[in-house]
Structure formats: structure tokens, C-alpha cells
């Protein structure tokens, strides 16, 4: 509940404030968002499995974001930033799909 509220508040804040993303942050922000989404879906699945833990969620959320951004940063330094970005997004998207499939099975038995 509070998560949905927080998400809503964040979206409203973003729309109202129209934040300017600093240039150095622009390659990392979308990846970080996707990584955070992955953590969120993982948490939702864990919740339905009955193994959800606040602490684990917070840590996984933050580590996901940091690791994804670091990977892209490393790729940028190595000159393969675009490829690493694509790889990270593909992997995260696969995990999100897998988690959504698990959630769907738990809730809908289908």
C-alpha cells in the first residue's frame, strides 16, 4: 500500500517539478529505473511466496540500481556502453518477465 502511494507521489513530483536530468546521469538513469523495476517485481513475487523481507528488499533494490549503473559506467569506460546497456536491459527484462510469470501463476494459477 505504502509502496503504491510512494510510487504515485514520486510520479506526481516528477511531473510537477519537471526535473532536468544532469548530462552525466542520462545514460544511467533509464538502466537504474529498469533495475529498480526488476527488484520491485522480484519483491512482489517474494511477497506472494511468503518470503518477503523488508531489509532484503531495500538492499536488493539499492544494489540492483547501483550494480546496473556501475555496469553501464564500466561499459562506457571500455567503449562498449551501448552494448552493455542493451545487455543489462535484456537481462533485467527477462527477469521481470519471469517474475511476472511467477506472480501470475501464484495469483491466477495460470
Amino acid at each position, binding site marked *: 500500500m*505504502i509502496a503504491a502511494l510512494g510510487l504515485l507521489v514520486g510520479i506526481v513530483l516528477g511531473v510537477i517539478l519537471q526535473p532536468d536530468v544532469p548530462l552525466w546521469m542520462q545514460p544511467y538513469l533509464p538502466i537504474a529505473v529498469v533495475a529498480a523495476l526488476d527488484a520491485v517485481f522480484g519483491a512482489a513475487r*517474494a511477497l506472494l511466496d511468503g518470503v518477503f523481507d*523488508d531489509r*532484503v528488499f531495500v538492499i*536488493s533494490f539499492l544494489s*540492483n540500481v547501483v550494480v546496473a549503473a556501475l555496469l553501464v559506467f564500466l561499459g562506457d569506460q571500455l567503449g562498449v556502453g551501448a552494448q552493455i546497456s542493451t545487455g543489462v536491459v535484456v537481462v533485467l527484462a527477462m527477469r521481470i518477465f519471469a517474475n511476472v510469470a511467477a506472480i501470475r501463476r501464484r495469483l491466477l*494459477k495460470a
Partner: protein
Amino acid sequence: MSDESTAEPADDAAQEEQNARARLRTALAPRATVQQLVIGLLFVGLGFAGVAATQASAQTGLLATAREDEVVRVLDDLTERQIRLQAEQRALEAARDRLLSGSEEQRLAASRARADALAILAGTAPAVGTGIRVTLQDGGGAITSAVLLDAVQELRDAGAEAIQIGEVRVVASTWFEDDADGRGVSVAGTVLTSPYRLLVIGDAATLATALEIPGGVADTVRTAGGSIDVVQETEVVIRALQPVSTPQYARPAPSPSGS
């Protein structure tokens, strides 16, 4: 990376679904704990960052998100377009320079110089300059219209810029005809008789040589019993004028260059 996603062993499926729904309901119930607050803050950050990223990609548009080869293609397109536009710009600037070359006075001076040159060519203005003075003495039918025409053409070939025969200015439309009486030559309607005096402006040495070439005008005149006398002058003044006639049919046409 999310450690919660460890799968459970398959239990009784119906029971499991009930449990899942129960857990979901439990989770959705609002609780005011520190953990919930932290999670809420994380989601605030997520929503904010999501909107920011969306707007950033919308603002920066193509270039920020484009792959390298796409950027290269865009750059190529721009370069090609720039080359085209630069060519167009050069053409337009040249046209402008033609239209605006120099000040008003410079353009007037250029126009006057052109008009003067054309007036000399058309024989409507007096002319002065280096040249030769030719006197042709008839010796019993030696000087015919053909001889005078030959002389004029030789002189023109030698670079004569203005020619006067007797009191007649020689221009493009000047014609020569043997006079009906056989006593002289009609030059554009004016009957001239011996001695014929020619005033020619041009390079004096070249003009004199042109008349003296073997088989040329001088030879012809002497062979026929006449005499020719060529004097090189540093200043020959041609005062005879060709009356200006307004063309009845011809009108100036716009120049194709548009300048």
C-alpha cells in the same frame, strides 16, 4: 539480484493460491513501520526517476538515445545537406555581388565606360588616339569600292578601332559602291573622289604593316597605277560621326545572366 525470488516447492496448488491472495491482502494493508517508510521512499525515488528518465529521453530526442551508427548517419545527412546549402549560398552570394558590385558611382562609371566604348564602336562619338593617316591617289580607275572595302577589312583585321574615310565614319553598316559616273566611290551614300583620305585609330605599326602585306591593298593600288601613302601618327582625331538612328524593330532583350 533480488534474493526474494527463490521458488518454493510446488505445494497443493489451490492452497498456495489462497495463501498468495491472503499475503497480498496483508501486504496491501497500510502499516506505519520504519521499513514501510523506507520502502515508500524507495518507490518515491523510483517514480521520480522514471518520470525524469522519460522526460529526459523525450527532451533530448534522437541524438541522446541514438546508437553510434545512427548518429553517423544523421551526421552524414547533415554534411550532405550542408554541402548543398553551401553551394546554393555561393551561387546566391555571387548573384548578390553582381547586383551590388561597387558603389553607385562605380557602377555609373562602369556604365559610362561601356557606353563610351559602344559609342566609338557605333561611330556616334568622336575618337582620338594613335593610328595612321592613309592617302590613296587614284591613277586611272585604280581605286574601286572593292579596294576601299579591302582596305577597311585589312585595317579591321589589324585591330583598327575607329576608321574614317573622307568625311564618313566607317561603322558596321557602312557600304561601298562604285559611283555610277565612274568618277569615285560612294561610301554609305556619300560620293568620294580621289584622293581618298583614311584616318584609322589603332596600333600604328600593325595597321601600316597590314596595308603593306604582299598582295594586299598597297600592292593592288600600285599595280593599278595608283599611289598609296601611309603616315603613322601619335594622335589621330576622328571627328566624323555616324548619325544615331533609333531602331525601329529591335529592342534590348533581358540579358540571360540576369546581371
